[in-house]
């Protein structure tokens, strides 16, 4: 598939390069790319200044190792959340070739359901929502489970009602999920309002943990997110590699027609994958709503993160999602921390640069394979 593009036939007929020239171009391209990738690393490690026009908040890693470690931790923990959300997206995509554009809306739905349930369970809340001191572990876990399950059901409904009978028409399925996401987003605006709100962490988690590395006191909730992401990743891995359903899913990713020809009920597998994929969006929504906040427009951000993670990681690959999430988490956090302090708001551009570099080198993503 992709090799057709690289074949000599795609080159303009009048300009054909010799093998040597082609190699020179390739080597030159890789060298440029390597230099471009090294420059930011050198900047962060050695050159970021603390004074002058380009002063950064922390200075270079050599100058301030503590904040460097904190930035790495921030990157890794953000990556954990990106992974939880994006793994659901990539699971659905890998098996069914369905781009679930409602993934961001599902994220927001899971968050809002948990938010409302938590408020209901705890009772009276102040003008600025709940405080962690009012919330115990049950007040967080029960809403998390309910939000996740509800979104899983919503995902299953969408798949059974709208997507199932359009199997194989992937553009049409993408448009259907876009329509669902418009309706969901508008209904959530009507029911939950337009003000940013957040779910309260339980009081046992809303503390700091001493990491015993250069005296860093790190937010426990971020470590909790990371742990949760690792558990989700491990469970997904075991499920996909060690169980029968997982085996069928992996076979389905490679050859759907053959799997159904073998007499396996692929429709049931599709439904299961959609339940799990949507549940991950809902779970991500609860964590994201506790970690950051829930508001109209947040769905677009999380759809963007999911898309970027799977575009750079390679669509349908769980390992790719992990690597993609890590790259995105690191890029956004390092850009925000190590750009000159007057220019930190340019950090968003680096999300695009990251995607552009990966697409330029590997159009199907780092771990992508031709469909």
């Amino acid at each position, binding site marked *: *598939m*992709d090799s*057709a*593009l690289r*074949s000599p*036939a*795609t*080159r*303009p*007929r009048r300009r054909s390069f010799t093998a040597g020239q082609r190699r020179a171009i390739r080597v030159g391209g890789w060298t440029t790319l390597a230099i471009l990738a090294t420059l930011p690393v050198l900047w962060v490690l050695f050159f970021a200044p603390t004074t002058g026009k380009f002063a950064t908040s922390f200075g270079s890693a050599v100058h301030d190792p503590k904040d460097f470690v904190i930035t790495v931790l921030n990157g890794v923990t953000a990556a954990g959340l990106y992974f939880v959300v994006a793994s659901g997206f990539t699971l659905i995509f890998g098996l069914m*070739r369905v*781009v679930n*554009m409602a993934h961001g809306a599902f994220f927001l739905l899971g968050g809002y359901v948990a938010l409302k349930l938590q408020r209901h369970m705890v009772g009276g809340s102040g003008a600025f929502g709940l405080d962690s001191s009012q919330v115990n572990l049950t007040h967080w876990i029960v809403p998390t489970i309910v939000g996740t399950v509800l979104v899983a059901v919503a995902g299953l409904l969408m798949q059974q009602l*709208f997507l199932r009978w*359009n199997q194989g*028409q*992937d*553009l*049409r399925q*993408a*448009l*259907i999920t*876009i*329509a*669902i996401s*418009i*309706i969901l*987003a*508008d*209904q959530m*605006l*009507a029911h939950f309002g337009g003000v940013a709100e957040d779910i309260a962490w339980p009081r046992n988690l809303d503390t700091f943990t001493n990491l015993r590395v250069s005296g860093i006191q790190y937010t426990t909730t971020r470590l909790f997110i990371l742990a949760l992401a690792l558990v989700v990743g491990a469970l997904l891995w075991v499920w996909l590699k060690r169980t029968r359903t997982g085996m069928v899913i992996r076979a389905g990713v490679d050859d759907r027609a053959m799997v159904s020809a073998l007499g396996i009920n692929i429709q049931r597998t599709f439904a299961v994958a959609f339940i799990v994929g949507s549940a991950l969006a809902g779970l991500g929504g609860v964590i994201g709503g506790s970690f950051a906040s829930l508001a109209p*427009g947040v*769905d*677009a*951000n999380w*759809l*963007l993160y999911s*898309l*970027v993670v*799977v*575009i750079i990681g390679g*669509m349908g690959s769980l390992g790719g999602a992990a690597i993609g999430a890590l790259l995105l988490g690191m890029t956004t956090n390092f850009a925000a921390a190590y750009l000159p302090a007057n220019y930190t*708001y*340019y*950090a*968003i*551009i680096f*999300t*695009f640069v990251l*995607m*552009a570099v990966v*697409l*330029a080198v590997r*159009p*199907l993503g780092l771990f992508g394979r031709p*469909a």
Partner: protein
Amino acid sequence: MKLALTPDRVAAALALVGAVIAPAILSSYWVGTLLTQMLILGIVAASLIFLSAYGGMLSLAQVAIYGIAGFVLGNATTNGNTKGLNLGWNPWWGVLLGLAIAVAAGLLFGALASRSIGIYFLMITLTYSVIANLSFGQITDVSGFGGISGIPTPHLIGSAEAHPNRLYYVALGVALTVYILLRYIVRTPFGMTLQGVRDDPVRMSSLGYNVVLHRTMAFGFAALIAAAGGELFVWWNGHIDPTTIGLANTIDVLVIAVVGGLYRIEGAWVGALFFVILNNYSQQISFIGPRFATLIGAIFLVIVLVSPGGLMGLWERTISLTSGRRRGPTDRDSIGLPRAEPTV
């Protein structure tokens, strides 16, 4: 050459006459607000339909490019009193700069995305759209959350409030030019090759055509059209902020294209007219009220599911029923999406 009197041509002539005499017969609210907005949205939707119908690329980046042109024009021509660079240029130079930067952005976006097709292309262009929205929201040097206000129009046209008809005729002129240009370009060797690339990229590449280059050029050309729409928009609105290119508006333009009919350029303005009127009058229906997005989402869902090829498909079906001739989008599925995923 004698032109046969087909229903299409009669309808086109009536629409053109209606558009030209509209300021004489309709209220200034209709002309200055609804119809001008319809023409502008139609121009952006036309760039989307062109890419989809002739390039097989369903792009969600058209609104981002429209916004880039609008923001550049705003930054270049405002003179103090607002966010952004306030360069205070002559509006016409601002127009040129906006078009140039938007096309450059389009070529860059296109070059990165055109090795993908189908849903991959849709996903990549959607990330462009969201990133552009967030960028303009966060980078306060060029806009920031509140956006740019008081963007001036050239003296020749005058402000949209004082002379709504002038801007309407400018928008009409641009829309007609875009339509004619698109109809022309798809018949040039470039346009024919592009359609070949749409139908069978592998064969075209083995014939020696550069598939990626053709897609990129088409994307750049569509960026020029979307940019023209964006500049008209800031003249019409006098203000642009990141919400203008938010996900909701990105999807609105997609909805306009699909409702109009994703396989015929005319569908862009038909869909836009439908959208603008619905947007304007649905607020008065009590059970819809402010829930316009739900309504448009539901309509979009029905059209995508049942797929009568949008309003243009409905028109063609009516014509073929009355005249007994079979017409319509034959080599595409009825919604105008490429029937099978072409493989690269």
